[in-house]
């Protein structure tokens, strides 16, 4: 429906601008805070316009470290977060593609049983099973490494369910044509199914990457080695400066840095993301 009424236009723009302002204002404050020096940030009123310290703060963040987290470098924490988020997103996609493939395309005993078992894990997020999961990870000697950070978060009912729905929309004839052309199951999976679900995979990657990046509780629990800290944990620790007041300018700079990779992923994959969520034609 395309309409052109001045009043409607005005209202819809007003609503949109208002909503954007609500979301953008805290980010603006973060940016402003990251561009002033430590002294300015302890004075009231807080500044609303950017200062001239942005690049100095940027350098300091990487070279000095911040607050309680001074012993870990921000660069390393960013790298840890990136590796963890990538492992979680890629791992989740691989596992759920395979399990959805099995559930949709193979007739094996208790097929629906397995499907529902996977589905039921939706009710068991990390927070609920955190103690047993920790026990298992500890016994497997996966504390303080990337495997321990990512593997327990990889199993994903949501992604499996989504891929199941995607595969169900792929016409049967495609499978039959591939069978006649001589493709075995894995060939079909690799040559036809994955390319056909490409946009859905991209959409899910965006969501899962951000999910992985934002993990806080689980990394906090299983990492004691400072070299394995993630950026989200790091920011929290920076706030816990014992005697001194928090170095807001550097903390905000770190926050900005922590926001960057998800933004890059979203912006970079935006086109595929939207296609993946809206496209229906296969």
């Amino acid at each position, binding site marked *: 429906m395309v309409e052109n009424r001045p009043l409607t236009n005005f209202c819809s723009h007003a609503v949109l601008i208002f909503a954007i302002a609500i979301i953008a204002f805290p980010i603006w404050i973060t940016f402003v805070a990251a561009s002033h020096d430590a002294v300015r940030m302890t004075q009231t009123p807080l500044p609303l316009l950017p200062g001239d310290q942005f690049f100095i703060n940027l350098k300091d963040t990487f070279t000095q470290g911040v607050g309680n987290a001074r012993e870990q470098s921000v660069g390393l924490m960013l790298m840890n977060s990136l590796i963890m988020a990538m492992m979680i997103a890629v791992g989740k996609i691989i596992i759920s593609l395979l399990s959805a493939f099995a559930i949709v395309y193979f007739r094996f005993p208790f097929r629906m049983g397995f499907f529902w078992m996977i589905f039921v894990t939706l009710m068991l997020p990390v927070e609920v099973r955190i103690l047993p999961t920790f026990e298992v990870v500890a016994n497997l000697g996966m504390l303080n490494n990337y495997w321990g950070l990512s593997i327990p978060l990889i199993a994903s009912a949501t992604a499996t369910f989504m891929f199941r729905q995607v595969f169900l929309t792929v016409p049967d*004839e495609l499978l039959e044509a591939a069978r006649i052309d001589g493709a075995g199951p894995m060939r079909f999976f690799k*040559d036809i199914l994955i390319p056909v679900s490409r946009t859905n995979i991209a959409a899910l990657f965006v969501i899962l990457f951000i999910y992985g990046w934002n993990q806080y509780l689980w990394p906090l629990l299983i990492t004691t080695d400072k070299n394995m800290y993630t950026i989200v944990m790091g920011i929290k620790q920076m706030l816990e400066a014992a005697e001194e007041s928090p170095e807001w300018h550097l903390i905000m700079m770190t926050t900005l840095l922590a926001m960057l990779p998800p933004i890059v992923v979203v912006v970079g994959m935006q086109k595929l993301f939207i296609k993946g969520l809206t496209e229906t034609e296969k």
Partner: protein
Amino acid sequence: MAEVILEDVVKAYSKTEVIHGISTTIADGEFIVIVGPSGCGKSTVLRMIAGLEKITGGIIRIDGQVVNKLEPKDRDIAMVFQNYALYPHMTVFNNMAYGLKLRKFGKDEIKQRVDQAAQLLQLEGLLDRKPRQLSGGQRQRVAMGRCIVREPKVFLFDEPLSNLDAKLRVQMRLELRKLHERLKVTSIYVTHDQVEAMTLGDRLIVINEGAAEQIGSPLELYEKPGTKFVAGFIGSPAMNFMDAHISRDGQWALMQGDIRLALANGGVPRFGGQQVIIGIRPEHFKIIVKGPQSMLLTVDHTEILGADTTVYGRFADTPGLITIRLPDIHHFKSETILPLSVAQAKIHIFDRETGARI
């Protein structure tokens, strides 16, 4: 190229039998059309030959080899699907080459075969396009090309033209026929459209409710339909059926309203006195000068198609409308009375109980 033999082929889903034993031999290079109303099981037969459905009973042979247990890829067949089933993410070239790649053909050989098929199907300029950038007819041709490059023993077509618009369908029908004349590959073609069946097939298999009603050439089916079902299915507009009984001496068919039809070839004395069904095709009625032998049709309404006119009407008090097709344009008001006659040879008689031809 190969012979395809079906021996008493049965298909059942759990307890329900849907194909009740079909037997036929399809000769090498023959174009055979399986035709029937929707849901009659014609696609199931094709899919059993393709290996996409398990065969519950009976034997299917392709080129002498029993293929019951073979995977589709090992049967050396190629299939065109109703919705084409082109791989949406691959270019036209790759769509056609995929089967060859999986069969480990060399790059040069693949290129040569695809180019050849593309030339044959006038797809040369389109090899780099994706299926979604093609029109319906072009997609159809790519699906054909995917089959041709494989040089299989048998082509299978599952209603390949039903997604095209009417004009394109006529054009593709002709192209299909020409293609078959060039390639001479055994082809099995499923359709519900009897015009396609009549124009394409060397022979037709008419299927009704999972059983083969009649197998024969298009003209045979038209001129000597073996059952009432085949008679009603082949030909458009459909054949008219009227209740009648045969006179004691078997020379006449007597219908309601005192209509007497003389029967050809000495009549059917064996069936004297029996209740039967008379079938007459709409195009076999002729308008005559009113006489003692004429059947009087009271016109209900007409459809003028230009080349011919379809008239709907009633004989005296027969139930249901009778359709007649007259060449050229005629304007008849409703309630006009038309005296008609039918050539003796054009009268079909069917058993009222079994529907079998008498």
